[in-house]
């Protein structure tokens, strides 16, 4: 157990899985120098060109490389530098990777992890700050993972690498910079299992990615007002562990869902709609959503700060319903 940044924990997870299984390899832009975010630090020195494949700026071919290699027995980790860049790789990810097993009557197993970096950080503006998890959640055949801290990131990534289905693994950029106690050895955090980050009895806050820390801070402050908030981190968005969320809401009778992506048609809509349906008889107040406003992401920090949901937005939403 050592305190590590999420970035270091991620690099460690990849290293340990590559050491464990020769079929695992990494391909992406600038992975040779450790990756633009440092999540591949040390890998090229240890595994060389064969298993750390530094590619051209060709995300569509890069994703296809993953599909083809997986279809014949390898276990690719495909790195799409920034989530907005997924737009140039969508066909291979959505029409090929996600559908191939089904279209082929079940024959191929496609153990592919597509990692990417999402979210607002240091004024990267409209084409480098997006959170598009909802798109991939809408695609049958894909699993979608979005960790909020170093411990979960390492354990979930190892599970994703060992999983036999395609997994879209989304790193929030600011979460990458946070640190936590992380075991030095390999371990798994199961896919599809939500985590109750904090227990509470008055309101359930379902928080995703970077919103988890904001929610925990909000929960501390609510404690002061005598409001006991339960904070749930789904960790995996598809398949989504609704049972854990529903059990919590049936107990607290109130819920707020928070994410960094825009609200309209975000994953929060799915969670809120399902809670409102399946916990209908338990709810004492409407399910509230905290999310970004419906606009492209601005460059100016003063606007970026207005755009980004925070503990304050979560507090406001909770106070509306308790």
């Amino acid at each position, binding site marked *: 157990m050592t305190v590590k940044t999420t970035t270091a924990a991620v690099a460690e997870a990849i290293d340990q899985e590559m050491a464990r299984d020769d079929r695992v*390899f990494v391909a992406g832009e600038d992975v040779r120098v450790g990756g633009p975010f440092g999540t591949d630090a040390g890998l090229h020195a240890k595994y060389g060109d*064969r298993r750390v*494949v530094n*590619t*051209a700026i*060709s995300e*569509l*071919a*890069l*994703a*296809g*490389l*993953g*599909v*083809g*290699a*997986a*279809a*014949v*027995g*390898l276990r*690719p980790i495909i790195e799409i530098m920034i989530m907005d860049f997924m737009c140039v790789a969508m*066909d*291979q990810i959505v*029409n*090929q990777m996600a559908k*191939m*097993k*089904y*279209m*082929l*009557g*079940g*024959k*191929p*197993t*496609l*153990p592919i992890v597509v990692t990417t970096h999402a979210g607002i950080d240091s004024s990267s503006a409209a084409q480098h700050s997006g959170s598009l998890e909802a798109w991939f959640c809408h695609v*049958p*055949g894909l*699993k979608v993972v979005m960790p909020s801290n170093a411990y979960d990131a390492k354990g979930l990534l190892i599970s994703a690498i060992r999983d*036999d*289905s395609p997994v879209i693994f989304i790193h929030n950029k600011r979460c990458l910079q946070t640190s936590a106690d992380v075991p030095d050895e390999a371990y798994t955090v199961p896919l599809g299992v939500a985590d109750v980050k904090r227990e509470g009895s008055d309101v359930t806050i379902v928080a995703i990615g970077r919103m988890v820390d904001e929610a925990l801070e909000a929960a501390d402050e609510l404690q002061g007002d005598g409001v006991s908030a339960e904070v749930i981190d789904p960790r995996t968005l598809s398949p989504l562990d609704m049972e854990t969320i529903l059990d919590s809401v049936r107990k607290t009778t109130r819920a707020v869902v928070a994410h960094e992506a825009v609200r309209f048609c975000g994953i929060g809509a799915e969670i809120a709609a399902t809670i409102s349906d399946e916990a209908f008889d338990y709810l004492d107040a409407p399910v509230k959503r905290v999310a970004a406003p419906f606009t492209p992401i601005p460059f100016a920090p003063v606007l970026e700060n207005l755009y980004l949901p925070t503990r304050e937005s979560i507090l406001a939403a909770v106070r509306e319903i308790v």
Partner: protein
Amino acid sequence: MDLPEEQMIRMLETMVRIREFDERAALLMEQARIHGSVHLYCGEEAVGVGVCEALNPDDYITSTHRGHGHLIAKGGDPRLMYAELFAKSTGYNRGKGGSMHIAALELGMIGANGIVGAGAPIALGVAFASAYQDNGRVTACFFGDGATNEGAFHEALNMAAILKAPVVFVCENNLYGEWTPASQQTSVRDIADRSASYGIPGVIVDGMDIMAVHEAVVEAVARARRGEGPTLLECKTYRFYDHVGRDFGILKRDPDEVAAWRARDPITLWRAELIAQGVLDEAGADAITERAQAEMEDAIAYAEGSPDPEPEDLMRDIYS
């Protein structure tokens, strides 16, 4: 290049089997006995057969929406193919893919594809894996002339060249993409010219001459196996029928153009060659066609009589 007589005969037989398969597939579509749309390979048989005859059973191919010929050339069983077209549980894809997604991984046929150009990045990945696993296998990637205008084609060829992936990119230049002539959508007449963008060999062959195709592929495959990387092979060929089925009625092509190409039917040419060489006589050649026709009729009967998928199949095989 000298080939054993049985191989020369098999090459004719496979072309004939593809022709007989697709002629019937067209009929079945017109009769609404099968579902979805079929893109016929008729006229292009020399390409698929010429290529696959240069591959080992454990080599790979990626295909297109026009993939029946590729699969038969790679060893596909017409019974399981028709079963797929009939959307039966006995089909290659258990009835869940249909003509546009037909595949047989066990034969190294990674799949037809409904997205033009999408096979190239997948072929890159399959070939990358062969190099990674050092298993000496080669991948042949089929695509049309129109597909070379998709970004996927460009990205895949550049990356394959850089990685020296053991892949042969086979362009079936049939002069049209759907109902648009190549001259209106492709800025070069010869697709092989595009090899210059990747520093790889670009070769043009007469796609109606199966030996010409075969010899070029044998060389490209040898090069790939030696670890010297990809080749772009352009086969000049022609779509005897419409884009979908036999006559969709959208575009009338110049009858002289159609006639000129039909006069160079790859099957007629090869059949005549074999008879000229004394490898076959008329009777022997006719027997091949009769065998193929009987095989296809039997396969259709098998397919049509096969069971539909079960309701549970709807939610099966989404994840591993």
